[in-house]
């Protein structure tokens, strides 16, 4: 098992290298660079500009610049953000916990809704409960998060004034009051992301359950007199969760992508809004680092999916 994980991590290295190369080349080809605004600043003489560019190696050929970046990265030097005037790794570490907090809570909310609703709907297909669940699921994944986000802000912040609509990282409170405020301001973004995720997950859980529920071994389990609840949980769910786990893990990149939009709407100072602002500011080292972190997360979740898959399904062995 640990050998399998180790080998998978080794395999991840070339793919991450490939991803970083593509990212680097695309960013290098894109117009603008960290010193782009220096050119428009009349206070900086052209000689100084040229000297700075030469110092940071910006006029070197792409492959040299990539190798420089790679060498620095390998030594733990993520670069320097000229816009924020701080190291990129500090910047990312500042932002990442907020994103993980919001996305993690949203995923937990989605699972907490999707699994019971999907399972119950599958045990009574075409019942009233199933119809209602289906309707809500369709509405849920038809509405984009930028729409529901603004709708939530209009209802819960503007009209009812229950929840804050700007996410703040420096809450002036301590202890329980701080924790409560953290929860309160996360409610809307978590709901928006979580419900959107829950909608498609519910559909998937339901159909995975329906696929399993009519299989022969479920009839075998019923013939043992185990009772509906035990048959559903032990025999049907245990098998239906295998594809669901894969789907959830493989959906994680899309979840991070969706979070970028949500972070913009609610002004959450997470890694997604960092990406947007650094793209707008031509802050290339940050853009490179954030996209690379996303790539690492995607590779990581794929690995988690594979490990969970093998753990859930004894027919798959780690070799």
């Amino acid at each position, binding site marked *: 098992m640990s050998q399998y994980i180790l080998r998978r991590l080794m395999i991840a290295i070339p793919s991450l290298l490939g991803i970083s190369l593509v990212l680097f080349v695309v960013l290098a080809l894109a117009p603008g660079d960290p010193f782009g605004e220096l050119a428009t600043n009349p206070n900086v003489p052209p000689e100084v500009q040229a000297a700075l560019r030469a110092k940071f190696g910006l006029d070197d050929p792409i492959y040299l610049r990539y190798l420089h970046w790679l060498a620095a990265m390998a030594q733990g030097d993520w670069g320097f953000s000229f816009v924020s005037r701080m190291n990129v790794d500090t910047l990312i570490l500042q932002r990442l916990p907020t994103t993980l907090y919001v996305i993690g809570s949203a995923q937990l909310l989605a699972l907490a809704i999707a699994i019971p609703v999907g399972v119950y709907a599958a045990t009574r297909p075409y019942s009233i409960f199933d119809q209602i669940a289906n309707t809500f699921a369709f509405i849920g994944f038809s509405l984009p998060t930028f729409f529901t986000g603004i709708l939530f802000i209009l209802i819960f912040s503007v009209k009812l004034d229950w929840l804050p609509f700007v996410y703040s990282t420096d809450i002036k409170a301590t202890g329980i009051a701080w924790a409560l405020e953290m929860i309160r301001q996360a409610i809307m973004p978590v709901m928006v992301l979580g419900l959107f995720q829950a909608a498609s997950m519910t559909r998937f859980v339901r159909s995975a359950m329906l696929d399993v529920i009519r299989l*022969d071994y479920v009839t*075998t*389990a019923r*013939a*043992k*007199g*185990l009772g509906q609840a035990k048959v559903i949980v032990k025999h049907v769910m245990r098998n239906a969760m295998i594809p669901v786990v894969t789907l959830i893990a493989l959906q994680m990149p899309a979840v991070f992508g969706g979070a970028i939009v949500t972070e913009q709407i609610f002004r959450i100072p997470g890694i997604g809004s960092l990406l947007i602002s650094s793209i707008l500011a031509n802050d290339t080292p940050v853009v490179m680092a954030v996209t690379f972190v996303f790539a690492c997360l995607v590779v990581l979740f794929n690995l988690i999916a594979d490990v969970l898959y093998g753990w859930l399904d*004894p027919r798959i062995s780690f070799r």
Partner: protein
Amino acid sequence: MALLDIKGLKTHFTTDDGILQAVDGVDISINRGETLCVVGESGCGKTVTAMSILKLIAMPPGKIVAGEIIFEGRDLVPLSSSELDDIRAKEIGFIFQEPMTSLNPVLTIGEQIAESLRRHEAVTKKQALERTIEMLKLVQIPNAAGRVHHYPHQFSGGMRQRVMIAMALACRPKLVIADEPTTALDVTIQAQILDLLQDMKERFGMAVMLITHAMGVVAETAQRVVVMYAGKVVEEAPVDELFGNPRHPYTQGLIRSIPRIDLDAEHKTRLEAIGGSVPILINPTPGCRFAPRCKHAMSICAEREPRLREIAPGHRIACHLGDAQ
């Protein structure tokens, strides 16, 4: 008193095209300790009849619309699924057709046998495991103590069917329903499984309802035989009587369609098949359901449905032909 007495059972399915009368007035009784074979071609309602006994058919679309299923003096039809749970596996065990798909792939076979014991008997986890290993030994699985922790995919088809038998017999039921237990297996394994079933039956003294479409299996194992056609019983007789003196044209056809390796070489006869195919059981025409395929069909056959009646002790047929004779 019979152990199980099915009277006038009708199980219908709601489909998009109308009501499918899969089982339409079936009478079958099984005595304690006997082997009863139910034969008939695919789609004649054998499996639905068997599944109806423990309400294992999907409901909806299936529904038992009429009839009684008396097991040890108690009618099972009005019972709810949770009431039936006390009878399932404990009183009536079930062996399914497809050993490859009838075992849960993510649970060990030991767990799947033991869960039935733990549901119906007051045993500890350890006792259940010991009983499970004992059952695996009885069904002749080599290295039972080690194999008990293996998953279904680590077993061959024949071995899986042995596991299914161990599972069905774990709680010592009084009746075992085996739904084509050998159909999915190759011929050499088929004989082994039938022998094992016979052996278990003698050891535990249970009754066996063996559903099959192989006449050879019937001749080898049954004491009594029920022949079904299109959702109805057409003939019922002790096994020797049925093979020696089949009275219903359908039964005669079934027996003639058994390949005989000893005769073919000398006589070069063609293997006889019953022409036509099983009728679709949505809005069936009145009269005898076999009439369109019957060589002896008379005008009355299309008009009136023949009733099952006794023509000799223990020998019953549903055919107008007997009336004329």
